[in-house]
């Protein structure tokens, strides 16, 4: 479905930008946030006169969180809508499925938050603005062992590529740094009851519990840990980064510390500009890490477009050459593998609020 609310009428000289992600199905909330962020970026640029005098139009397609739907969606964007580029607002499965097609059709794409390691492989057309699992895992291992001096760490991870890849990077690094991973257990997205794995965790007497997963399950895990009397330090990942985590986990979230790429209280101007615009447009919702990533992905694309126009090959090159672009999630550059280089941010929960701890380039 083409999006009309971004204000532009379909004229010959508008530039079409594609967005694909889940608008229905269990992950539709994330998809919707991502789309809203992309829309916001487009609206802002159109207000400023568009890209090189042309308005930009966002064409959004639902992938329902399913690979083959994503494939069709992208085929439509490429072949029917003939978009100049695509913002990938979906999760790994669908994004991983479409990137080979995107590469072979030579359409520039910026992936917002999918972390499957292979997404950027196989060509020069796909870049991603979120750092890979490796970096996040390593960053937390370093923080846990060197800063917090934790020795016996328990790991719970969601059994999808996101969880597995971050957790393996973490494990390798933590071991290298001399800590033990005393227990490791997978859980499923949508799980509600963690009492049995937490009982096992408790028995292993960890001094820190690293949870690699999203806020819904994370909130359940912190709450049920308290019920079982586990008093280890909670460590987490960017999947925690949502107001929902605080809402669902209530006081149990206290002191949970996690890595992320965005925080709304960042004083940098781009961030404040983004947060303000977001609040104006989407009244009762808070910008979070997902929306920031999608906003940045769109911005990177638009920025490159300003420089290189809509020629797909040039555009792709321009995207890859992005250097120190001020994104809401930090200064963005891409390395030779089309992966982003930007700082990892550490946040913690204090009195029901997220609080900035530090940020560091890994």
């Amino acid at each position, binding site marked *: *479905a*083409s*999006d*009309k*609310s971004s204000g532009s009428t379909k004229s010959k000289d508008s530039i079409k930008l594609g967005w694909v992600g889940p*608008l*229905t199905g269990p992950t*539709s909330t994330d998809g*919707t946030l991502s789309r809203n962020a992309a829309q916001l970026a487009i609206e802002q640029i159109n207000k400023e006169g568009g890209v090189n005098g042309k308005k930009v139009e966002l064409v959004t*397609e*639902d992938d*329902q*969180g*399913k*690979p*083959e739907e994503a*494939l*069709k*969606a992208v*085929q*439509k964007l*490429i*072949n*029917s809508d003939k978009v100049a580029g695509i913002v990938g607002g979906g999760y790994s*499965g669908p994004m*991983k*499925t479409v990137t*080979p097609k995107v590469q072979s059709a030579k359409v520039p794409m910026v992936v917002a938050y999918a972390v*499957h*390691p*292979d997404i950027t492989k*196989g060509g020069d057309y796909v870049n991603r603005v979120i750092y890979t699992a490796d970096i996040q895992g390593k960053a937390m291992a370093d923080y846990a062992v060197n800063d917090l001096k934790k020795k016996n760490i328990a790991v719970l991870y969601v*059994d*999808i*590529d996101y*969880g*597995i*890849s971050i957790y393996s990077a973490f494990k390798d690094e933590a071991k290298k740094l001399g800590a033990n991973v005393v227990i490791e257990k997978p859980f499923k997205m949508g799980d509600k009851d963690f009492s049995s794995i937490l009982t096992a965790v408790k028995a292993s007497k960890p001094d820190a519990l690293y949870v690699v997963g999203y806020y819904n399950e994370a909130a359940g895990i912190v709450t049920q840990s308290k019920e079982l009397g586990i008093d280890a330090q909670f460590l987490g990942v960017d999947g925690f980064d949502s107001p929902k985590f605080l809402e669902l986990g209530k006081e149990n979230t206290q002191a949970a510390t996690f890595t992320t790429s965005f925080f709304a209280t960042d004083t940098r101007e781009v961030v404040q500009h983004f947060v303000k615009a977001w609040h104006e447009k989407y009244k009762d919702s808070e910008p979070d890490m997902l929306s920031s990533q999608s906003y940045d992905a769109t911005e990177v694309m638009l920025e490159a477009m300003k420089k290189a126009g809509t020629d797909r090959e040039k555009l792709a090159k321009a995207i890859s050459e992005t250097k120190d672009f001020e994104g809401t999630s930090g200064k963005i550059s891409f390395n030779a593998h089309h992966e982003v280089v930007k700082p990892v941010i550490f946040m913690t929960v204090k009195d029901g609020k997220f609080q900035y701890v530090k940020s560091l380039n890994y």
Partner: protein
Amino acid sequence: MVLEALFNPYYVDIVVFLIIYILLGLGLNLITGYAGQVSLGHAAFFGIGAYSSAILSVKADLNPWLAITLAIVITFVISAILGLPSLRVREDFLAITTLGMGLIIQSFFKNSSITGGAYGIDSIPTPSLFGMKLENMSYLIFLLIVMLIGIYAVRRMTQSRIGRAWMVIREDDIVAQSMGINTTYYKVLVFAIGGAYAGAAGALFAHKVSFISSDSFGFAVSATLLSMVVIGGLGSIRGTLFGVSVLYLLPEFFRLFQFTFIDMNYLDMYKMMIYGLLMVLMMRYRPNGIFGKKGAKKVMTKRLHKKKAVKGGEHIA
């Protein structure tokens, strides 16, 4: 190739996936429509086909054609084995048993290392013919041929003695046995053949999308397939073609045409609501499916004569 340029790959893809679903539907219709073994786990067969072909062509480096062929054979065999519980489990439990089997197999795909675990399998090669890669249009043409063969074979089987055996098994197992039908053999056979169709669909799917993960083979797919087949009409080939096409293309129409009279932000959810409503209404007004075997008169007799099938405490007399 000229042909490739002529057609919008987007439309080509829609049709390619449609044909894959039709193959799935044909297989399920054999199992559930013709032989009466309700299956809520068809996606598992689909997945087995897809993973077999993917593993063989990526990890064992076999030629895609060989991989596809072997995948069909493998699915045929595994489906036969998975059909075994249907011999023993009570009829009214079969839906739940097959559902469970589907979940188990999906879970295996997700956790086993041979299937690439949560990462799935990628870089599945595109098959080529006479040195030409079968992409888009040429792949579609190839699939069309496969589909026609598939339809022809279903037609022949169901209109023969074998189809009659399945029909009797569907209607009354005891009668079937008493008439000299080896129900064990024919039940396993129908699972094997129906599974092989799904296996073919899976293999063709894998080589089309080039990346597969367990997400594509879940309960939702099984349930959707069953809906397609039932809405078209159990035991009808035309019905399967129709049911699959309608339910498959419906969401695609939403993608193609733009509606302005509803809040766009929720369009996709409306889409699913309409989808659900349609399923309810179709069942309500055409309980035997659009091309169901039973016309109005037959429906009436069925209603009047309906004697609830009682297995369990039955006295065969």
